[in-house]
């Protein structure tokens, strides 16, 4: 049983909650940067339309093709911003239910979407290998997402630019497993594993999860029970 703090909440729970706040901050900051980029492009297109209108007022005809092109570019950025906001909304709601039945492969795909900007900034590509799979686990979804984020983030920070990270989920003997595979590591797998365990200690504890290097495949493998706690 985990030791309790003065509030009656166990120490790993407290530490996991603090970890969660950092995670929330990191994802929110990344999302706001991405949105700013989309807004900046829409802003320039609005400015361009103003420029074209000013030219038209001075008698220079506006090419309808140019207007159409601008409309397409604006629509593209609106679509991009909509996708970012959808992810943001889903992420915000991931904390609604402390315990929930979730589709793990779907969560892995969502994680890849959340980490896309971080990966792009590092020149890394995330390839999810579980798009068609579907199996559920009963877990603490926000903490699990946080744990997966730490694994992926640590790997992104420790691989060379141009690398591909493969990410997938499978049922295993213990319950379910998430694996991360990359060939272009610039640190040893043990160093990466140590860094993950150091950051995610409280999360591994509250989720009753394990992170190891799979000897057969060489992947970083996260193992989680099918039922972490009761609903």
């Amino acid at each position, binding site marked *: 049983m985990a030791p309790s703090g003065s509030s009656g909440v166990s120490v790993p729970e407290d530490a996991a909650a603090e970890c969660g706040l950092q995670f929330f901050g990191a994802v929110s900051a990344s999302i*706001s940067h991405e949105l700013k*980029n989309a*807004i*900046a*492009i*829409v802003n*320039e297109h609005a400015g*361009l339309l103003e*420029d074209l209108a000013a030219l038209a007022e001075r008698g220079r005809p506006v090419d309808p093709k140019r207007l159409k092109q601008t409309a397409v570019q604006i629509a593209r950025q609106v679509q991009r911003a909509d996708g970012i906001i959808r992810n943001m909304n889903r992420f915000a709601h991931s904390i609604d239910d402390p315990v929930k039945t979730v589709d793990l492969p779907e969560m892995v795909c969502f994680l890849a979407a959340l980490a896309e900007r971080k990966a792009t900034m590092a020149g890394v590509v995330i390839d999810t290998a579980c798009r068609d799979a579907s199996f559920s686990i009963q877990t603490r979804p926000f903490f699990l997402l946080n744990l997966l984020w730490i694994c992926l983030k640590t790997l992104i920070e420790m691989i060379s630019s141009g690398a591909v990270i493969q990410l997938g989920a499978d049922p295993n003997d213990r319950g379910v497993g998430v694996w991360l595979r990359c060939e272009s590591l610039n640190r040893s797998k043990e160093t990466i594993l140590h860094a993950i365990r150091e950051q995610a200690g409280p999360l591994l504890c509250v989720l009753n999860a394990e992170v190891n290097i799979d000897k057969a495949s060489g992947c970083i493998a996260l193992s989680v029970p099918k039922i972490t706690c009761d609903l």
Partner: protein
Amino acid sequence: MSDKVLLVDDETDFLEVMAERMKAREIDVTTAASAKEALSLIEKESYDAVILDLQMPEMNGIEALKALKSKNPDIQVILLTGHATVQKGVEAMKLGAMDLVEKPADLKVLAEKIKKAHAKKMVLIEKKTEEKIRSIITQKGW
């Protein structure tokens, strides 16, 4: 004489439309989609100002600023950022950035900053020329 600008951002849609609007204002603009490309361009050409996005893949704006300044200490760099914080501003200024502008940027404001960068560059060139002439006069003993 039109201002010569190098615009650096990994968002190619942003580069295209911003460059089009700058050209309409008679700014001589060249674009680069990465810091690496920008670094190779400044070796071949001289610019009045480099407008540099702070958040780019592989080499970010601060690293790129350091690299640009080490290649040409007189280069005038205006940083573009999604979120301009005091901390970031101070860091950029310490590294020699001329200014920091938050996205979405107002082109009018940016154009004014480009003019200032041009003026600053001219002052630096004049100062260097003056120093050169003074050195020649001293050496020749006229």
